[in-house]
């Protein structure tokens, strides 16, 4: 099974995009774009590229197709994995289903018709655990939350419901859902870390540290939340930015002070940045470089598979930005900004 997965990941790795290839895509002709996409296993995006005629529902359908592509590849990678590794990657895909949950919740807040919201949900295929049809027909947010609480994401939703009932503030609901999801991901990763090696731990550390730092900066300096509340909303972590370190950072008064107080190597990577998007892009760039190293190394199966998925998703986000940007007739420089591929110069 190990040989199978290694071969499969190596084959998939050939579909990843070097930065230069993505950059070429921005100015390529429609025909060249279609050929290049097909070569990298994205034929279905190329086929429909001509029809992404600006209308919102078609643009969404591009998003859905990209997620379907990611889910398809994850399904192939999951097959030969052990139960814990499989549980981890399955939960990794649950991010998309959590996004569906948020869409459903917002639709109830906006009193949208079930048929409208159902068309907007991402099809989860074999990874789907929710009965979207049933949930979309809940009468209001309260009923929807109770129905969700009786389902597979009870642990994630229960806390969010308690928070929401107190204030009816959508921010509280979203923040509680996000935090509970990532807490669950960290728990599942922890079970794997002993067997999956340091490389897997490093991938998780990069991901969770980025989530925590970006959330901390956003909550603290955009939403002006008090330090204790900011800390409470972050993901419980045993990685580079540990709980005690996050407490210290949350108590600081400016973005620059937070970046200066970061432990190595983040303080070096992020020095000189002045905005949250830049921090996100730089941290993602660092994480992508390390994921590429893991992918090319002899790391355990799950680490290489996880590294591939991280890189693939990043690529597909950039492809989506290019397709949308081209279609909307944006300037090449704007498309490159939207790609967030180059951390320093562009952002």
């Amino acid at each position: 099974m190990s040989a199978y997965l290694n071969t499969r990941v190596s084959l998939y790795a050939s579909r990843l995009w070097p930065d230069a290839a993505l950059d070429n895509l921005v100015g390529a002709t429609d025909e060249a774009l279609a050929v290049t996409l097909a070569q990298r296993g994205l034929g279905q995006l190329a086929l429909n590229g001509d029809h992404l005629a600006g209308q919102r529902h078609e643009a969404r359908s591009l998003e859905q197709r990209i997620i379907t592509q990611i889910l398809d590849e994850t399904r192939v990678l999951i097959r030969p994995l052990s139960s814990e590794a499989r549980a981890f990657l399955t939960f990794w895909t649950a991010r998309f289903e959590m996004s569906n949950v948020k869409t459903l919740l917002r639709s109830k807040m906006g009193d949208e018709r079930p048929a409208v919201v159902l068309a907007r949900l991402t099809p989860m295929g074999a990874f789907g655990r929710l009965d979207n049809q049933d949930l979309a027909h809940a009468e209001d947010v309260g009923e929807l939350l109770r129905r969700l609480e009786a389902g597979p994401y009870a642990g994630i939703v229960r806390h969010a419901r308690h928070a929401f009932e107190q204030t009816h503030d959508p921010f509280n609901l979203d923040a509680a859902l996000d935090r509970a999801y990532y807490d669950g991901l960290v728990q599942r990763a922890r079970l794997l870390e002993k067997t999956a090696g340091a490389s897997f731990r490093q991938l998780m550390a990069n991901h969770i540290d980025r989530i925590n730092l970006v959330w901390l900066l956003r909550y603290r300096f955009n939403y002006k939340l008090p330090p204790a509340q900011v800390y409470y909303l972050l993901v419980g972590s045993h990685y580079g930015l540990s709980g005690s370190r996050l407490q210290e950072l949350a108590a600081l008064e400016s973005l620059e002070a937070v970046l200066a107080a970061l432990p190595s190597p983040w303080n070096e990577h992020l020095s000189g940045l002045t905005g949250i998007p830049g921090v996100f892009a730089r941290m993602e760039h660092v994480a992508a470089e390390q994921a590429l190293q893991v992918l090319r190394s002899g790391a355990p199966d799950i680490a290489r598979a996880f590294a591939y998925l991280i890189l693939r998703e990043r690529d597909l986000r950039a492809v989506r930005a290019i397709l949308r940007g081209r279609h909307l007739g944006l300037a090449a420089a704007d498309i490159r900004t939207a790609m967030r591929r180059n951390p320093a110069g562009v952002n």
Partner: protein
Amino acid sequence: MLRAEPLLKIQLMMLASEAQDAALALARFGVFNPAPCTTDAFTESPAALYREAWLQAESRLSKLLQQCGSTGPLHVPADAEAPTLADLQELNHWLKEVWTACLSCHESSTQTAEARGHLDALEDTLAKLEHLNVNPAHLFRTDSLLAVNVGSLPASGIRRLTEALSMTGHLVSRFDQAGDQVFTVIAGPRARQAEARGLLVQAGWRELPIPDELRTRPEAARAWLQAERAQLNGKSGAECRLMDELRQRFGPRLHEARLRLALARPLAEAALAGVRGKGGLAALSGWVPRRQMDSLRETLEARFHGRYWLDTREPAASDATEVPSLVRYPVWLAPFVPLVKSYGVPRYGEFDPALLFAFTYLLLFGAMFGDVGHGAIILLLAAGLYRRLGRMAWVGMAAGTVSMGFGLLYGSIFGYEDILQPLWLSPLHDPLRMLMVAVGFGAGFIGFTLLINARNKWVAGRFGEALFDSTGLAGLLFYLGAIGLLASLGGGMDVIRPAWMLAGTGIAMVAAFKFHSARAGLGERLLVALIETLETATSLFSNTLSFMRVAAFSLNHVALALAVFTLANGLDAAGHGFTLILGNIIIIVLEGAIVAIQALRLMYYEGFSRFYSGDGREFVPLRLLPEKARAGV
């Protein structure tokens, strides 16, 4: 022979305002399988809103019925009409109002239950405070520097909250837990109370109301608690009365709503396949048995008096995978059908293997597990479990009966070989003959499947494959020739020359066909033809030998029984009896299960995989009520 009924594709066009009645008429007709409408001119979806309203109403009704209980059996009058879109939307609106009332009642009773839990916790707190040297009046003073909160929060968040609150100088102390809720006291500087409050809200904190009596006169708190509890009981009673009232008030109308939604179901379900239209016109498409077309015309004429247009056409070759398969199975064969369909649904026009399956499966099971005693026990067990197993019990009873039959042929009863005289042969005493018979049966079975496959391919219009492919007539010629050759070499018959010719002709045709159909360069085509032809020969040979397991398992059955007898004979009287009983149970359960699976495996992999595509579509007629509900009506 079982055959799918010949179907016709129909397109029924009518006024869009009568689409719901047309769908209802088709549902009552009982054999209309909706299909997507392919007329390009019809660009609108006139039933989309209808389906949307129906789905919402159906969802609300099912939730109400869960709360209020069933309204009894549903009888749909033969002359009842389907609701219009406006009627359906009105019904949906009414159901929304009723469900909202019911939901608020339900929410209220949930909150009452939670409030009861809080009162219990408060009482507990009070009991604990009474034993401490603490003056609650001082503790809960609103003008002190220390702010104290008592309440509950989800257990999963307690650690994180404690860490976060430590940043505001607050301490958290838990004193009780009920379910996933942890009851805690939180104390900290009053100056930072606002900061802590924001955090507590985020954490899903629920404050326990501390009565003034507890703040000032702790001894009076119990009386307050009792009063609160009495108030909650009264509230709970009022909620129950309200629910009863809702049930009484809305019960009859809910039944009426069920009826109207049942009448609306056909168009809502047909809309899923795709009801198309333009302007005031709507079109319903689908498949109907050819022999019932006259009956359909009469039904439509009686209902619409000429206000419709019906187009019919034969299924085209391009429809092969789209046409549903409608096969009417005799009652006695029905229990075997799920076992066939677990492999796949027969394609329209494809040979339906249910009869072949039932016959061969039972034959293989009996041959591998021939024993009068064990077969009788399987028969009795299946009959005893009839209520639990449903129709599948018939498969068990049939298998038990056939096993008994083979037991008589083998002269075997509970593994004893010397009580009954075998009517045919005892596998243990003539294993070679048993092996020959098994392989002979396998050869016949495989030859038959090749013939069926050729027929399926011919019906599907794939004449080349039917005649020349390795699983077609050419493959069959080669196979028959090869059998004749082997039989002649073994001395069983003397047909070497014609067998050579037959096998040679067959394999040459297969090789030529493989060469012709490969899409590659000359060298690659030669290689493909060579390898695939070789593979044809080896796979047919190995598949035939696979049937040796039938003889092997019949021997295995006797060998297992012998092992049990050997063990039992070495023990005293009690041990002897116990070992015999236990041994027979193991034989029935373990060997019975293995043989059942092996027989299934032979059917699926040596049989079905050779001729049965199983990628057809089930004929799913439009119905007034879903399948499970119809059973209860």
